[in-house]
């Protein structure tokens, strides 16, 4: 190889490299601004997670509906994964049919509120017969009854600075949704399952249902909903406790 070729190659490679880096930096800014970077974007698996989440948010509709099924297709058994918390508080609330339980709604909202189970049940009820798959591989179809989360969000008035909805549960777990999934028509706060009150095993008194994501996103035993503009200062900063156990924050896959 002659020096001439090497020098020319060096310059073009250098320019291409610089352009590539600048492009990446700009892409990262744009992606963050349009909400395409998931909170668990760090670490060795961050690239795959970011590509999953960004691609889906760019290419797919915010409003696509998860498949709904006929009553005849409802699974005979609704498997239980994760038992109710064995705390004194939960036992006391449960023994009293959750009469003393409240759902707190706070954060970036115009009117912070706290609702009793009866107040939530008096909101417009919706039902959905949807398929829920666990990340482990098993799945079932069930009918869920509850109020769309969007109704509660509209009731308290969400600030336009809010970007995520964080949910907290009585078993000390917590998770979060971006606004497209929080306002999605099939994202419910459910209190009924297959025509009955939801059982403690399935998440009483109130369970989140996120039809376009895997089962672990449908958080059980809810106690609080909080609106935030960033997840960086919430808990571990990864949007959920799931990434600490290896499960991605975005479970739409």
């Amino acid at each position, binding site marked *: 190889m002659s020096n001439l070729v090497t020098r020319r190659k060096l310059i073009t490679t250098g320019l291409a490299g610089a352009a590539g880096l600048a492009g990446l930096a700009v892409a990262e800014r744009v992606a963050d601004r349009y909400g395409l970077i998931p909170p668990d974007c760090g670490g060795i698996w961050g690239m795959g*997670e970011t590509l*999953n989440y960004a691609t889906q948010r760019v290419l797919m509709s915010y409003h696509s509906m998860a498949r709904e099924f006929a009553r005849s297709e409802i699974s005979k058994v609704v498997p239980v994964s994760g038992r109710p918390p064995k705390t004194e508080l939960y036992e006391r609330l449960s023994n009293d049919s959750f009469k003393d339980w409240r759902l707190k709604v706070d954060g970036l909202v115009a009117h912070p509120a706290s609702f009793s189970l009866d107040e939530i049940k008096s909101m417009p009820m919706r039902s959905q017969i949807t398929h829920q798959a666990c*990340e482990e591989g098993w799945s*079932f179809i069930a009918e869920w009854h509850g109020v769309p989360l969007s109704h509660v969000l509209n009731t308290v008035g969400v600030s336009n600075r809010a970007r995520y909805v964080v949910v907290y549960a009585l078993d000390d777990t917590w998770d979060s949704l971006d606004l497209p999934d929080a306002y999605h028509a099939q994202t419910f706060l459910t209190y009924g399952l297959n025509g009955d009150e939801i059982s403690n095993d399935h998440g009483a008194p109130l369970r989140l249902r996120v039809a376009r*994501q895997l089962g672990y996103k449908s958080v059980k035993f809810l106690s609080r909903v909080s609106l935030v503009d960033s997840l960086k200062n919430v808990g571990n900063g990864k949007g959920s406790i799931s990434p600490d156990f290896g499960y*991605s924050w975005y479970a739409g896959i």
Partner: protein
Amino acid sequence: MAGSTYIPELAEGRATEAREAARHGLVVRATHWIFTLSFFGLVVSGFGIILAHPHFYWGETGGIGTKPLFSLPLPTMLGGPSGWGRYMHFQSAWIAVLAGLLYVVSGVLLRHFRDEFLPSKAELTWSSLCGSLLEHLRFTRPTQDESYNVLQRLSYLGVVFVLFPMTILSGFAMSPSITSVFPWTVEVFGGHQTARTVHFFLSDLLLLFLIAHVAMVILAGFGSRMRAMILGRAAAGKEPR
């Protein structure tokens, strides 16, 4: 190629020579090894995910209360393997799909598939196919005058254009958000659990192909084939062309 003076005619002559001797172009070689690594990641993580629930079903749903189609004799391991398995599976899948796309696009543009993999009509007769199969069964060493025999051509095309796309599609069919936008991805399989079972069998077929592929490479001369896939040229002299 270590000359310090630059003589265009000479350099061009050498380049033509190199092109003639080259078995695999740069894109093929680079994507081959990137793909190898990511495929390894997919297999390891896929196995890890199965460990969380080594039971397979047919239809839409399956789990406790459903009779499995079959179960693998594996311990059920919750937590770890399916967790990092998922992160690793999607990361590997992205790398595999991007490298695969680059390979397919360059292969189509450079007529790699048409020239080297598309069998001629004469090769697609029963006698030609049986002849090639017999040669394989008798472990006849391939002659070097043709690049790939008809069975090789068909299996490479099948893996690239049928098995991999079907595996990706059955993966899409398990995604609750992708199926909300494209319900047909799961409907063509007849249900979520069927797609999962099909995904498992397609992956097994890909693994079988990998085993056959490596076995053939070893039979055909491991050193020279590895050299060809890494450096682009088969060892001169060892392999008459």
